[in-house]
């Protein structure tokens, strides 16, 4: 193993140890709230990373990913509240339903040429879904939302967030592992060619629509898992989860953290969630603060914070070998 491979292993191992020991440290030092925040970051990180498969790797500007996040959440929550469906089945049905919605929306959207129209169409579809959930009271309870979603005792957050923290950590880690494999696979490489130059890609034999659609469905599936994690964390759900602003937020996370680095959106999610939590506890101008941060990032580090770190590390590795 070369030096960079070794240092990667060490960093990874340190991160894993830290993440596993985190609840113990938090319990000693401060309040459970930070554990809750960390789970929130994991959920957003998973959502933003799944989304980034479509935007950062596939170059598809989806403005409707809240639909998949919400579809996963609503499917799981409704099954738990309205049927005698076992928890594990409801948890699996969520992402499956999200993927099915992704297939429908994706089927029409990938035929569209041009970033603007793609964004508009995905936004329109997700708004349609939002209105449907909002108005269909008999099924979804509309804007009353769903309360008291039953969560199995072993991951219940009533007493402490520790158990749920570990549950979310394991789920997120597995999803990240799979997404990482996909990004590095031939499928992922071809997805990159479609972002770089779709015309050339077609002329090396790529079926662009089919490839994009598969990426879209995979992305919807993992966004749905993030939605299910949210349901178990909050034990309540309202149509707000489907709002267009959620679709916007994952784009911002990608921008903040960097769309061309695998962990970029995760970094972006951490920045957004933490910034939101701190700023809103001191002032009501959270939007202003976020706007300023974004302007600064886009102006000075268009590759995102993660992209910047990645560049610096690569430059250092190059200097070492030279």
């Amino acid at each position, binding site marked *: 193993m070369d030096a960079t491979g070794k240092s990667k292993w060490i960093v990874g191992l340190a991160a894993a140890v830290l993440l596993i020991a985190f609840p113990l440290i938090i319990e000693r030092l401060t309040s459970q709230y930070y554990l809750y925040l960390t789970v929130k970051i994991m959920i957003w990180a998973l959502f933003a990373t799944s989304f980034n498969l479509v935007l950062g790797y596939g170059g598809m500007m989806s403005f409707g990913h809240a639909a998949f996040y919400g579809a996963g959440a609503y499917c799981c929550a409704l099954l738990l509240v309205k049927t005698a469906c076992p928890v594990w089945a409801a948890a699996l049905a969520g992402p499956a339903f999200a993927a099915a919605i992704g297939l429908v929306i994706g089927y029409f959207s990938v035929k569209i040429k041009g970033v603007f129209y793609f964004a508009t169409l995905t936004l329109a579809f997700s708004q349609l879904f939002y209105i449907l959930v909002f108005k269909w009271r008999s099924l979804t309870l509309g804007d009353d939302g769903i309360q008291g979603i039953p969560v199995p005792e072993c991951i219940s957050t009533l007493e402490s967030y520790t158990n749920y923290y570990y549950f979310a950590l394991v789920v997120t880690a597995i999803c990240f592992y799979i997404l990482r494999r*996909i990004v590095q696979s031939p499928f992922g490489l071809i997805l990159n060619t479609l*972002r770089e*130059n779709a015309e050339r890609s077609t002329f*090396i034999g790529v079926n662009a629509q089919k*490839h994009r659609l*598969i990426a879209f469905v995979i992305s919807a599936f993992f966004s749905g898992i993030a939605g299910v994690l949210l349901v178990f964390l909050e034990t309540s759900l309202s149509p707000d989860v489907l709002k267009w602003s959620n679709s916007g937020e994952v784009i911002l996370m990608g921008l903040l953290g960097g769309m061309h680095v695998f962990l970029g959106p995760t970094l972006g999610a951490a920045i957004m969630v933490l910034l939101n939590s701190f700023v809103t506890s001191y002032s009501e101008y959270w939007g202003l603060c976020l706007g300023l941060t974004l302007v600064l990032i886009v102006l000075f580090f268009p590759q995102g914070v993660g992209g910047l770190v990645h560049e610096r590390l690569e430059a250092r590795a190059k200097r070492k070998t030279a």
Partner: protein
Amino acid sequence: MPILHIKGLKKAFRGVAAVAGVDLTVEDNQIYSVIGPNGAGKTTLFNLISGYHTCDRGHVYFKGQEITGLPPEKIVGIGIGRSFQVTSIFPGLTVLENIRSTVLVTGKKGFSLFSQASKLGTKDSEETLSLVELLDKRNEPAGVLSAGDRKKLELGIVLATKPKLLLLDEPTCGMSTAETGSTIQMIRKIAQEMSLTVLFTEHKMDMVFNVSSYISVMNFGTIIASGRPEEIRNNQQVQEVYFGGAYAS
């Protein structure tokens, strides 16, 4: 059986005929060039053969099989690779990745979700890169290459699709005289080694007459003359087109 046979091909854009009834037959292992002034319809002809545009009328046969109206990815799959007049590569990927992605798609591994791309097709990709003399630049981002190297990389991409017929749209466009010479030598050598048929368009006349085994001249969307280089050189009509006769009146 000819490798490429075109019959009565027509394409109009908003009523203006870009290709107005073209018949063309390319035999195996020929280096066939299509020349003609700007706007004669050469690129449109290439676009029709490669599936970039669909034709209004006419037929295209590849090795006797009709390919009229097939989408580009299908046409690539059966053995027609093309380059573009404006070099078309993947600028954000490395030189090696440009070729590797093509090798993987050609090997039908494009939908493999869990194998590691960086461990597949390396040998094939490197062989292709050494053919186009870019092996030493394999880890550079394709976007920083010089114009000449980009053309070579695009040629490499096209070769990695394992074509039988190469369609090259002005392969030396924007190159210096020295680069042009070496690129042409390279194309000729590769075509011979891999027993490829080459159909290309070009503006540099000395080069065309040097390498082509057969030449067709296009003007106003039709082929006005076809023949061996020496026949074309002595053709009255061709001389008129090239020395302004067609426009002078």
